[in-house]
């Protein structure tokens, strides 16, 4: 596993700061000032992790993401979006970006994103998107780790069916810390949740990282499933 990270941003001062920070984290930092440059550098250096801004002249982050995923679909691409610019984030997720961070960048969020990315990278590709069903006394818990995408969907819907057949009052979807979910994953999950929320059972989501949580809220998934914190697991809300 190489330690290269490619940062694409049209802001030179930001690049400078990133370089310092990521270097301090122990990464080897590559920088590019626009999408086109970024794609070229990616081809040349093949980093496993890419951080890219979205709004850039010449070639924007979305285009760069598309090109990078074309070259190597397994690359962890974390997009950096303006705060509250959820449309772009979702658009990026639909293009298989594995995660996104809001600007202005918080170190905590960056660290988490980097950690998740590293964990995901360590999960073997064949095990990618593992879905594990376990039974608790009041809830059926579906554990999700890695990257939820179109590949994961059949397994996930199977798990939902089994969980529903357990007849528990609550169905809990438990995302692990490193879990990420792309556009196809979101679409699939949404339809599953809609289906089971319609059948009368209580569906809860937990363990979502804050940025995914805000994506879910934006997309209105919270209408079908409650998002609860891990410690309040399966406790009905007042």
């Amino acid at each position: 596993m190489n330690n290269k990270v490619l940062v694409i941003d049209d802001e030179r001062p930001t690049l400078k700061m990133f370089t310092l920070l990521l270097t301090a984290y122990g990464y080897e930092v590559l920088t590019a000032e626009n999408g086109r440059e970024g794609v070229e550098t990616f081809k040349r250096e093949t980093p496993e992790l890419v951080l890219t801004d979205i709004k850039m002249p010449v070639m924007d982050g979305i285009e760069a993401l598309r090109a990078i995923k074309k070259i190597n679909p397994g690359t962890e691409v974390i997009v950096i979006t303006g705060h509250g610019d959820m449309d772009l984030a979702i658009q990026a997720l639909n293009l298989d970006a594995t995660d996104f961070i809001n600007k202005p960048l918080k170190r905590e969020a960056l660290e988490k994103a980097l950690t998740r990315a590293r964990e995901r990278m360590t999960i073997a590709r064949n095990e990618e998107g593992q879905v594990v069903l376990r039974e608790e006394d009041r809830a059926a818990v579906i554990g999700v780790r890695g990257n939820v995408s179109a590949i994961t969907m059949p397994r996930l819907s199977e798990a939902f069916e089994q969980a529903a057949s357990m007849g528990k009052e609550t169905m809990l979807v438990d995302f692990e810390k490193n879990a990420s979910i792309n556009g196809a994953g979101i679409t699939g999950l949404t339809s599953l949740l809609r289906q089971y929320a319609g059948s009368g059972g209580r569906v809860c989501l937990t363990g979502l990282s804050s940025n995914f949580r805000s994506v879910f809220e934006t997309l209105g998934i919270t209408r079908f499933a409650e998002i609860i914190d891990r410690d309040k697991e399966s406790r009905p809300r007042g």
Partner: protein
Amino acid sequence: MTAGERRFARLARIGLREKLLISMLAAVLFISVAIALISRYILVSSLTNELEMRGFAIAHSVAERGGSYILDNDIPKLLALIFDEARLRQRKDLVTYIFIEDQAGNILAHTLTHPLPDNLRANTLAPGKNDSIMLMELGRQEVYDLAAAIHEGLYRIGTVHVGLNKRHIDTLVGKLRVAFLGFISAVVIISIILSSWLSKRITKPVSDLTRLSDEISRGNFDIPLKLGSGEDWNSAECPAFTNTDLPCWHFDQSRSGQTPAETHRKCADCAFYRKHEGDEVIQLGDSFRNMVWSIKLYRRRLRESEEKYRSLFDSGPDPIFVVDCATGRIRDANPRATELYGYPMDELIGLDFLQLGPEHNTACLNYFSEIGGGCVYYPKRLHYKNGGEPFFVNMHACPISYRGKQAIIIAVTDITELIEKDAQLIQAGKMKSLGEMSAGMAHEINQPLNAIKVGSEFLSMMQEEDLEIPKEHFKEVVNEISTQVDRAAEIIDTLRSFGRKSDLMEESVNLNQPVRAVLSMVRRQFELDNIRFELELSEGLSPVQAHSNRLQQVIFNLVTNARDAINDISNAESGDRRIIIRTGNEDQRVYAEVEDTGGGIDETDQQRIFEPFFTTKEAGQGMGLGLAITYGIIKDYGGEIRINSTKGQGTVFRMEFPAAGTRGESKA
């Protein structure tokens, strides 16, 4: 002044009636006196002659018949004869006595009752004379003594004396005289009556006319006008009196600026303009009456018009001033002026007009004192109320002649509210622009924040991990943070100045400044969209009188339109995507151009592009207010905006402003 002149002047002062009367009387008197004198002379002398002839006739008849008695010396017969003659019918009044004397002078007979006084014998006949007459005195009465010779054959044998009573003759003559005097008096009285009636008939209408004219000249038209024809006015009979719109030859002529019809138009049966058959006095009366009616109509019309305009002046919704050209003081103002400006009327009249608007009114007054042309219009001028509160007005000034002096009539419209509304509209437009920009601006502010954040996170991490930060790294980070903070602050400042509602007062603006301000806000966004700016800003631009942030609004509208035009024909990946902005001076004017490489504008759309709510964008894309607001703002600063565009060749919007201090006023 000689006596003659004085007399003449006195004569001139006498009325026509007296003159007529006196001259007629004098003529009549002269004629009748002359006639009387002549006829009296003729009559009196012939009467006297007649009486004398009668006396002689008596004497001769006595002499004829008495001759034989004298020869016979028959005295009784002679006595009887003379008594008969003397007492015959009316003769006794005339004949006082008869006596006969012979040649020797002896009295043969006489009719007196007393002895014959000797003095009666004084009238002697000279030989060869047959008769003579002589005035005698008998006692106390005067007597004409007529002597006639008595002949017998060739010899005179005596003389008959007949005494005619002079008093009787005088009585007769007196009667005659009285008759004449009576006649003359009658003639005079009749002629006085006649002439006074005649002169009255002539002079009464004239003096009536005089009286009427005096009344009319005093402005009293409500007097009965009984002239000649003897009818009074009844204005209800004249339709033109109450309705001045009716055609009437008089109005045709009095309507200024209207040419009367070829023939005088009037009612088919005019109730007032008439001519009677009759003498000159009646004609004069008629024509005077017509004239007065005309004047009456005309005055009524004038009063109506005056009232109309006075009421317009008084009840007009906008202040109107009449300002003296020479002194610059207010001569008259309407109630609305006192209301708006807050001065009482008596204070306002006589006030220096400059006090209401010191900055602008000088130009107005100078315009009239120097050029004195037609009307002039000053938009958006600042005036001050009593107490110094400023407000905006449009001023419209026209030269007039007011009470014989050169004056200016100045109508003022309070447009403060309008300007405030205008400002609100512009503000709303700005808010819309800000809304459009918000995403871009957020991104724009996020960039420096992001750099700052990453830098500071680096520092805090190093500190937490207790790692040594290389000096140059530390310095780099700290400097960068400071730079980025400045950058963010600048963006916020620009935004704030753009969003701020402008004051009503204009400022001096260098056109490059709003251009740069807008670019600082949008440049990055446009570049993200692969639209490049090319700036050709001239240094040393003359300033213009404007509001910087409104000009920013203008530039912003133009560059966003340019961007939309470019996006209409090409996308971010390809094509010529440039916006060129130029500024410069051009003889007293300052211009700015915004050129794009977009799709251009149709000829037909170019005509309508500045109309409100006109948009070439798809429904829901644009309100069509941007360019209308832009146009309004540019016009406010006395500028112009023009389009130069060919379909498919891109577009140039060029705006020009007068350099500060050269802004003229538009002629109204």
